[in-house]
């Protein structure tokens, strides 16, 4: 089986998922003794191609179109290269940019699409494992077709290492500029503000389990008692209860404190992406099956409205009324 995987880069750097795709692609190609092709579109393609020449990679295609990601260009370029390479499986990252072009590519090529794969196998038939209901269940879907597109969850495969002497080929995708109807005009960093949660040694982190804005005072009091920094999952920030710079996760900050106390946080994959590097993880959550417990070192399976006040009191503090 021939596999074609599309690398990702941003602002001059290849993103980790590119090397993870190489591993996933190699595993899949190995199942049938096939070839693994990678492609990189835009930016410093030659330099990127050298770096993408990792173990297991047979060919790296460079498509020298634009500096940064543009989905109109990517969609055309990937479709054109697909027609040239004729792979059985097309792998793309399940990143934010992946979400912005993979479905269009699949639609244009009439390929069945399975997104956010956490495992892929093939014994002639492609089967893809993915999660449903916020990680509460896993599903396996089989793709009964000769060709398919799959997007791969970042962080699930180890990055490919080493070098392989892959063949590097330039590909002219002949982009039709008249069909490019979106323009990337720049980038903006968000966050900043009063604290940098990525610097904190101890984080008290609050999630949707807190229910109401007024109740934030309770976790604030705990953070004060522990001399810790307050952070949160996304819904708390979306609700405007804490500023954006407090958000831990894929689109927020990556944190690596000594102790991370997750209070009323389920542990969605996008949250975990930001805190899995914490040294000690404590979870307070009523649901013993919440995915956060897969990572936690210590857990209190109980109501935060009972546990947090008791914890404040255990250190001689006075919990606020909520």
């Amino acid at each position: 089986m021939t596999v074609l995987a599309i690398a990702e880069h941003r602002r001059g750097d290849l993103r980790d998922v590119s090397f993870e795709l190489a591993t996933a692609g190699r595993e899949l190609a190995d199942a049938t003794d096939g070839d693994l092709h990678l492609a990189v579109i835009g930016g410093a393609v030659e330099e990127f191609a050298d770096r993408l020449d990792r173990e297991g990679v047979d060919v790296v295609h460079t498509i020298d179109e634009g500096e940064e990601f543009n989905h109109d260009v990517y969609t055309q370029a990937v479709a054109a290269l697909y027609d040239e390479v004729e792979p059985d499986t097309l792998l793309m990252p399940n990143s934010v940019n992946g979400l912005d072009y993979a479905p269009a590519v699949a639609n244009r090529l009439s390929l069945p699409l399975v997104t956010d794969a956490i495992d892929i196998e093939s014994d002639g038939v492609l089967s893809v494992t993915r999660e449903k209901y916020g990680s509460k269940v896993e599903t396996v879907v089989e793709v009964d077709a000769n060709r398919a597109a799959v997007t791969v969850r970042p962080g699930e495969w180890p990055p490919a290492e080493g070098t392989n002497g892959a063949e590097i080929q330039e590909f002219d995708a002949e982009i039709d500029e008249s069909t490019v109807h979106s323009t990337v005009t720049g980038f903006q960093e968000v966050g900043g503000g009063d604290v940098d949660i990525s610097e904190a040694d101890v984080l008290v982190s609050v999630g949707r389990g807190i229910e109401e804005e007024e109740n934030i005072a309770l976790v604030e009091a705990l953070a004060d008692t522990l001399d810790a920094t307050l952070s949160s999952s996304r819904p708390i920030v979306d609700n405007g209860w804490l500023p954006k710079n407090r958000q831990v996760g894929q689109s927020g900050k990556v944190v690596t404190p000594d102790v991370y106390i997750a209070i009323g946080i389920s542990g969605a994959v996008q949250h975990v992406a930001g805190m899995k590097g914490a040294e000690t993880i404590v979870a307070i959550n009523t649901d013993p099956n919440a995915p956060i417990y897969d990572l936690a070192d210590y857990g209190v399976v109980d109501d935060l409205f009972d546990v947090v006040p008791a914890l404040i009191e255990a250190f001689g503090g006075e919990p606020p009324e909520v």
Partner: protein
Amino acid sequence: MKILIAVTEVAEVEDDFEIDGLAVADQYLDYDLNEWDDYAIEAGVQLQEVGEEVEVVSVTVGPERSEETIRMGLAKGVDRAIRVWDDALEGEGQLGVETKADILAAVAEDEDPDLVLTGVQSNDDAFGATGVSLADEIGFEWAAVVNDLDLEPGDDVASVHRELEGGVEELTDVELPAVLTIQTGINEPRYASLRGIRQAQSKEIAPKDLADIGLDASVTESPITLTQLYEPETESDATVFEGSPDEEADQLADLLRDKGVVEG
């Protein structure tokens, strides 16, 4: 200007549940408006409130039960709703991306909107692909994971922010007509007012089957089949503190002292 908003009802699984064949047993599922769609509705309704002539229409692929969810949108200001369902879709469990995109494309072709809004993903299946597939299917421009929208009715370009990973946003100009997939946090979704809820009762929810939108059962054909559904084996090796909340808190306090978080 006409705005079409794809709204879906999602199932949430209770903490304790059982699996029945290839699905979570229905009694453990609660149905609700998809979180991301709530923000998409708000984005549409805000555009309507600018004062120009803007019609906001929602479209849902879902059984009769989903009318409750659809009414939530109507109560928040959506003008009218379309609900597509068909016996051929019954029992499909999980509709493939192509099926959904084909159905929504047929509705979009009828309605001829200037702007289509969807959520980034639906909370249950989390495929995250419907909006962009739809855009490509109907030949609209698009942007995925939009968390800031600068558009006035009548403009032919929308300036959006796309929320990338790691606290970085991409600024992009998108030519209309376009599909935007809306990220949570882009706005503050309103609560439905009592008046809105009352008004919603008299707004139209047009039920349509596949034939009504010019499709037939072949739209459900998909090479993708669900073959397994199971609870993942827990990888948890967490030490769980036991006892009353006070006892649990004491053990946790000891741990935090041990770790040097708190002295003494």
